[in-house]
């Protein structure tokens, strides 16, 4: 038997918002077993996969497009991207493999690529598939796959990086944001890494990454004291740096643990578990089992997508049609549009989400969500006195305890379930977890 509050904390961080019965079920098990099931789920994933598009509006278009053709292609690409983003939100709500999906979302913010420049649902969807396929195993496999990912290449101008004319964009961000962190390399390393990455380009007819030997800078490059010749050997050298596992651990901690610095002992445990096999799942397990993880309650601000998807899950609101549109709009107005991170640095975190302008958007979205809750799901909010109703709202939204302040506000609204839900959704206890 696990402590219910502790397991609730775990599920709030490792899922998109746990339902009361999911917490109940997990609390009947051993904490370690719950972590193991989250990291390596036994249950099959029955949620609908992301859509694959038969045709991409831009692929295989030979010659120069007319103004009208360009506008039509842009419109079509945008529609596909909206379809993809909505389907992804639906998956986040429905999938049984919650932690796996949340990791896809994490990697999306880590290798932050935006459809604003990529403009292709096929390529953005393909990148999500790469995160899903390789995001829980050997990080080297993921990193090597990402250097062949057409969306990332396009986003960071990799196709323009050639032996004759280097373009450092991808090489720099690979080191600064994806593997090592700023300051762990020199400008000379960036230039050499860019040369190692030359040759990878896009086949525009197929929308695929291809290696063209004629564009590749032959020969050895010296990066961080190692010798590299191509993308794969570059990855091997980067991931062998002591800075790498520490950097990755701190990135995971920032999104699943706390905005406070990663404690040294937790870092050690995570780095050790990661080991020479660069096992992402082992690193995550070490983090979730660490006693300092348990002490991080109240130290993470929910990102808008986490807030919105969690509410849809917990309230049983269908993530389709009008409510899905409302959720997407709400998240966008709060500053988070799936598939469109604001920069290659990924999403903001912490207090950056707690502004008066994002609060206004949360209030609006909360009112819409509360109005869409199916009547049967409100049943617990009809029973007992005001106090019982406020407790029921906490149970529904996986809030362990209300502060006296919020309890007072919710008690005033307890007679009207929709109002109660609205206020609970905008409460500080629900915004921060």
């Amino acid at each position, binding site marked *: 038997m696990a402590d219910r509050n502790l397991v609730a904390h775990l599920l709030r961080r490792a899922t998109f918002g746990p339902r009361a019965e999911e917490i109940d079920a997990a609390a009947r098990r051993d904490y370690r077993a719950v972590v193991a099931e989250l990291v390596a789920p036994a249950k099959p994933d029955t949620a609908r996969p992301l859509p694959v598009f038969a045709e991409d509006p831009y692929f295989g278009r030979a010659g120069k497009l007319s103004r009208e053709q360009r506008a039509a292609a842009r419109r079509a690409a945008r529609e596909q991207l909206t379809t993809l983003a909505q389907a992804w939100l639906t998956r986040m709500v429905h999938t049984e493999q919650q932690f796996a999906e949340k990791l896809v979302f994490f990697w999306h913010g880590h290798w932050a690529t935006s459809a604003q420049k990529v403009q292709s649902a096929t390529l953005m969807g393909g990148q999500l598939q790469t995160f899903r396929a390789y995001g829980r195993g050997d990080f080297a496999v993921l990193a090597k796959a990402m250097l062949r990912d057409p969306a990332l290449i396009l986003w960071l101008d990799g196709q323009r990086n050639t032996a004759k004319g280097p373009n450092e964009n991808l090489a720099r961000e690979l080191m600064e944001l994806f593997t090592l962190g700023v300051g762990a390399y020199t400008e000379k390393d960036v230039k050499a890494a860019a040369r190692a990455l030359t040759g990878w380009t896009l086949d525009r007819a197929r929308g695929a990454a291809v290696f063209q030997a004629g564009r590749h800078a032959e020969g050895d490059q010296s990066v961080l004291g190692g010798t590299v010749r191509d993308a794969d050997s570059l990855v091997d050298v980067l991931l062998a740096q002591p800075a790498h596992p520490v950097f990755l651990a701190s990135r995971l901690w920032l999104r699943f643990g706390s905005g406070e610095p990663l404690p040294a002992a937790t870092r050690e445990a995570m780095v050790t578990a990661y080991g020479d096999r660069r096992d992402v799942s082992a690193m995550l397990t070490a983090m979730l089992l660490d006693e300092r993880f348990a002490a991080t309650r109240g130290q993470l601000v929910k990102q808008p997508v986490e807030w919105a998807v969690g509410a849809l899950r917990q309230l049983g609101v269908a993530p389709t049609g009008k409510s899905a549109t409302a959720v997407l709009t709400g998240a966008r107005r709060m500053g988070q549009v799936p598939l469109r991170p604001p*920069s290659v640095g990924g999403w903001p975190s912490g207090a950056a989400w707690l502004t008066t302008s994002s609060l206004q958007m949360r209030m609006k979205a909360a009112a819409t969500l509360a109005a869409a809750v199916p009547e049967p799901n409100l049943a617990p909010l009809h029973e007992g006195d005001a106090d019982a109703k406020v407790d029921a709202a906490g149970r529904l939204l996986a809030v362990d305890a209300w502060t006296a302040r919020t309890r007072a506000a919710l008690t005033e609204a307890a007679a009207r379930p929709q109002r109660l839900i609205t206020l609970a959704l905008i409460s500080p206890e629900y915004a921060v977890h």
Partner: protein
Amino acid sequence: MDAVTRRKFLIASGVVGGAALVAGAGAYTLHDILATADHPTGGPGDRTLVLVTLYGGNDGLATVIPYADRAYRDARADLAYDTDEVLRLDAETGLNPAMTGMKSLYDRKQLAIVRGVGYPKPDRSHFRSMDIWQTANPVRPVNTGWLGRWLDHAGRDPRSAISLEPVLPPVLAGATCAGAAVPLGGVSVPKSITDADLKALGAASAGESSLQARAAACFADLISVDKLVTDARDADDDDPDHGDDPATGTGGAQATLQAQLDLVARCVEAGVMTRVFSVSQGGFDFHAEARTGQEIQLKTVDAAVSGFLDRMARTERGRKVVVVIYSEFGRRVRANSSDGTDHGTASDMLIAGPAVNGGRLVGDQPSLTDLDDGDLKFHTDFRDVYAAILTDVLGADPDPVLEGWSGRLGGLLHSA
């Protein structure tokens, strides 16, 4: 004092968590803020700073162009502008053809261009370099911005320095207080949420985490909110694409610069107590196909800033506005093979307004051949310019803000 009255303006402002708030030092409630509303601002010059941040690394050599330098043509090849294309400032230097408004300001002696601005050991990371510019500390990462520290020393009132960006930029985070973030689109609350709800949820509760306290403080900032309608709309509200901006996103506000400056103009005309406005535009990271993209971006900045200053010129308060434009770095001198440029170093700062000792190029164009690893060598430390802004625009002592930095760029502004 029409649509944005002082009171409505104050109501719309909200304090965002800077270092001080995250540390749990307590948030300002609206009542705290209103209580100081009619304090005189005073101070030497009584000027207003509008800080325009261009995110993504604006290409200084395509903004202020050394068109007569052979080395420029050699390095930039197809990206180079011809002599008859630039807006000539003198026999060697011209502005990008998209910058007709700035050219006119220059001719009216209201624009000074400081060249070769940078810092030692330049960092070519967007994020680290922007941190350096915003914290004014190139030596080590710190969690306060230079204007946040000015706030620390200048009455610690968050309304003194506001951001019109959705997320508070580090430049306005101080050690003991932070500037306010003002939503552009006005404030609205759903009918089902009452003023009493906001008041109740905004109360502090003992023992909660600092972030949860911050979430509660956001309600306090919205207390008594009526509907605030402004014309300064978020132009991109329903378009996630933000037009067809071709660049790699490296930060910057979502609303157009024009929309942000419209709100600044109304605030200045309304006589609010704010001394510093932070606005921004992103999308300057042109690793490829730079020329057209850069021109579109510069045209947007040019139109927004020159239009803003034209409007400001019509009022006494407006004539005290000083606009400062900067970016985290310039670009590599030599173009890459994608007709773009990679991350570089030293660049220009543009200082504009009636108070500016303008029509001048300040400092030499750094050599295009004597380079630091392919990049321009800076000759003016950015803190020299900050010191001048602190002294001549904000009437403040730069010492505590810039931690004893002694350099000063003199004569940037007319004496008040």
